[in-house]
């Protein structure tokens, strides 16, 4: 096993932990805001670590740029969508009270 494989392995294990935590949070947390909080960890860190694990296995620069783009996209759109979900959940819960 080369050093790149070692790094990949560690990253994948850590990523799986974050995905597991995100899923458990999604299923077990009591309301939508705490679930949102749990999920964003899986989004950013979990995918980021998988991207890192993939990146150390590849030699081509174009592939690295592509991977960086994937991570950036997921972070930016993940953050925006999290913001929109929170707004939607807020308006829904205020509808219920009204």
């Amino acid at each position: 096993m080369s050093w790149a494989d070692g790094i990949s392995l560690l990253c994948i294990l850590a990523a799986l932990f974050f995905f597991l935590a995100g899923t458990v949070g999604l299923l077990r947390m009591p309301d939508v805001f705490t679930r949102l909080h749990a999920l964003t960890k899986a989004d950013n860190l979990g995918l980021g670590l998988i991207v890192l694990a993939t990146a150390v296995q590849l030699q081509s620069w174009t592939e690295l740029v592509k991977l960086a783009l994937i991570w950036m996209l997921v972070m930016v759109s993940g953050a925006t969508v999290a913001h929109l979900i929170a707004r939607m959940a807020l308006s829904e819960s205020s509808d219920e009270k009204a």
Partner: protein
Amino acid sequence: MIHLVDVTLVVTLLACAWLSLTGRDLLRSVVLFIAFGLLVSLGWARLRAPDVALAEAAVGSGLTGALLLSAFSAMERARLTTDEVGLTRARWLALGLTLGLGVSLGVVLLSLPSDHPRLSLHIQERISQSGVLNSVTAVLLNFRSYDTLLEMVVLLASLVGIWAVAPFARVWPKAPSTPILAALARLLLPLMTVVAGYLLWLGADAPGGAFQAGAVLGGMGVLWVAASLWHPPWALRMVRPLLVLGLLAFLAVAGVTMGIGKSMLEYPASQAKTLILWIETAATVSIGVTLTLLFLGGYPAPPEQS
């Protein structure tokens, strides 16, 4: 272990489809269908069909999902979203009949000869004359280019059909856009254009091509509309010629090949790659614009008139 991946994927896929089709809550059904689209796209990847996976990722989950959601919200406004899903006797009968059909289809399928090379050998023989290295693009734009030409007509016809029955677009969002959403749209716009161009260029030698690139452009249009950044009156005048661009490019090439004494769409071998790329570029733009206007779900009159 890879078989375990396949089995898990297939079971999740089937569960998703069944729950989506038989659940009471229609919005839940739509969401499950979107999740189903994402899973199917993983299935294409497992079947070594990355071209199909690209198209499905853009269309099956993204565009269809957005279409279904906007239609759902229009139906909800009209209070049309209740459905009865209990199993009556007639439904049990229908279930039994489709089950029988499924079992007989399965028996037929399993009795098919297992290692028939089908058409892949013929295509490998002739791929060098097609002008491109990606066999799927060769089939779409050279060997079976009639089909693709007619498909451009289908796209156009469906849009004309929508405009004929729905004079006003249904999708202008009620809520005002937020600055964060607008910022995301402005960030993704150039990025998606680049990705679409990349997929188009890639299509000659690797999985990608006009349909995938056009679908990404269509997704961009959907984002543009959803973020309230689209201003229809002037934009429509500009995009209308783009709708027929792909079809016109195809017809022009067909006319020229017939004019020089070959049969329709039989490219000269030396020019094949150039011609394919030109047709694909025009088709990408047309597909992207058509899919965006399709999402509008009606003739895009300005919102204050509707």
